């Protein structure tokens, strides 16, 4: 009798602690991550806004509050304006090029049944490859006496300046970025294409639609979520263009390839003007936010059925 009683008591306390245990478990698990997000992401964000309003010389103790001065300076700064224009070019040409190439390759790959693995590997290896390594390889093959010019001259064309030309360099960097991201785009589009039910195409075939009509009236509208996704991810990544430019041209020639992020980097870590650089990051953040919101709104509405 006594032992039975004992076991009931034990069970009760066990059940009670089970609930307590759950709470202890939950908050122990959340403690470190929450501290992390507060101290590594949330507080630094506020700090950036703060620095953007100050004249921040890394050497002097005094960091006077200067209000909007940094923002005014930025808009008067020709290099910053140039970096904004360039970033716009990176985003527009980059995203359009990426969408067209990604969709094109995915459509082609969809029809191929042989060697799928080989094709995937060909398109995919650039995506997993180090951006720095790819940048240097492109720089090397595009040198004045590099492989591409060698081929051009053998075919009877004039040698090109490529990365040394203020007109060509930015587009070459965009091409490099599109080439490297193609594998990712391709997978996204292949997945999107697979989600379109086959019966739509069968129905269209019965109605006598040709492949162009099928593409315009079925594939494109139904692929809309994928296109929006790819455009949003693409614009965010092209807005943050840095590694390729820094390794291929360092922003030159004549600032023709400088991107906002590269300029921020130069301001902060070469001129040590943290205030100006922080103000520029705040502007970049606002641009990213606006573009993302617009794209979500406009692109999701356009083709809605």
């Amino acid at each position, binding site marked *: 009798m006594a032992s039975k009683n004992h076991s009931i008591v034990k069970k009760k306390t066990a059940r009670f602690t*089970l609930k307590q*245990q*759950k*709470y*202890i*478990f*939950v*908050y122990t*698990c*959340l403690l*470190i*991550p929450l501290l*992390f*997000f507060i101290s*590594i*992401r*949330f507080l*630094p*964000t506020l*700090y*950036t806004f703060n*620095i953007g309003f100050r004249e921040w010389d890394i050497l002097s103790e005094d960091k006077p509050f200067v209000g909007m001065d940094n923002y005014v300076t930025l808009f008067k700064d020709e290099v910053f304006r140039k970096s904004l224009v360039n970033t716009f070019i990176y985003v527009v040409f980059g995203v359009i090029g990426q969408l067209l190439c990604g969709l094109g390759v995915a459509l082609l790959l969809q029809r191929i049944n042989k060697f799928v*693995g080989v094709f*995937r*590997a060909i398109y*995919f*290896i650039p995506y*997993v*490859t*180090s*951006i*720095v*390594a790819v940048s*240097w*390889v492109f720089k*090397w093959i595009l040198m004045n006496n590099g492989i591409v010019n060698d*081929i051009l001259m053998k075919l009877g064309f004039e040698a090109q300046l490529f990365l040394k030309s203020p007109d060509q360099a930015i587009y070459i960097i965009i091409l490099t970025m599109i080439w490297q991201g193609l594998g*990712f785009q391709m*997978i*996204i589009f292949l*997945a999107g294409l697979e989600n379109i039910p086959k019966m739509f195409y069968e129905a269209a075939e019965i109605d006598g639609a040709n492949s162009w009509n099928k593409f315009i009236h079925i594939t494109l509208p139904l692929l809309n979520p*994928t296109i929006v996704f790819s455009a949003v*991810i693409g614009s*965010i990544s092209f807005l*943050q263009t*840095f*590694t390729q430019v*820094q*390794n291929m041209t360092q922003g030159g020639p004549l600032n023709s390839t400088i991107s906002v*992020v590269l300029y921020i*980097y130069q301001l*902060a*870590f070469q001129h040590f003007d*943290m205030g100006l*650089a*922080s103000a520029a*990051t705040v502007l*970049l*953040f606002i641009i990213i*936010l606006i573009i993302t919101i617009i794209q979500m709104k406009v692109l999701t509405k356009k083709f809605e059925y």
Partner: protein
Amino acid sequence: MVSTSFKPPSEVYGLKLLADHPTLDNYRKIMVDTLFSKWFLNSFIVAIITTLSVALFDTIVGYVIAKFSFVGKSIIFLFILSSLMIPTEMLIIPWYIMSTDLGWVDTYWGIMFPGVISAFGIFLMKQFMESIPDDLLDAARIDGLNEFKIFFQIAIPQVYPALSALCIFTFLGNWNAYLWPLIVIETEEMRTLPVGLAFFSGENQTYWEIVMAGATIAVVPLIIVFLIFQRHIIKGITLTGLK
């Protein structure tokens, strides 16, 4: 790139695909005469530790948010998600000031700390943890397993595909990370592979054959990871991209 890395200096500027006198000299030079092997090790340490940390924290937070109800849950989840809106560029200056003040510059921890937990990974893991049936977890509780054992022995095996995708992408991302390491690393010894390669190429523009050997070394582990995990990577992109 690979073919050039086997060419002697005299043959670098040719169109030939294969060298007339292939040589391993470039590899010997880069491994012996430079700190390349140290950079390789640095990258490896940073990428592995970050991946393990992300795997642990992201699965546990994702699990807790998906499977428990507690005070402040939705606020905490929204808070974590909202941090995804903040671009890294915006945080780099405060991080740098912080690292300088705390003496983290030029340390492994300094290179790693921004990435040890990923908000995106938490979101991903939460989505997958939600598909685990509650009955399964309750059954384990009745069997007397404590919460940590339930998490490790019951919950984690259910989400292996998502977890492996998360690990692969975290590893790739950290192996190739450039902007932050470039800022927080000062000495040559602490450079990671991308930073080392960038400086090395910048300082030695004429020795292209050695630069190409370096680029090849930087790519090889990724190609191995790719070939082993090809299926997971492609599945992972589809999972992470369109969920």
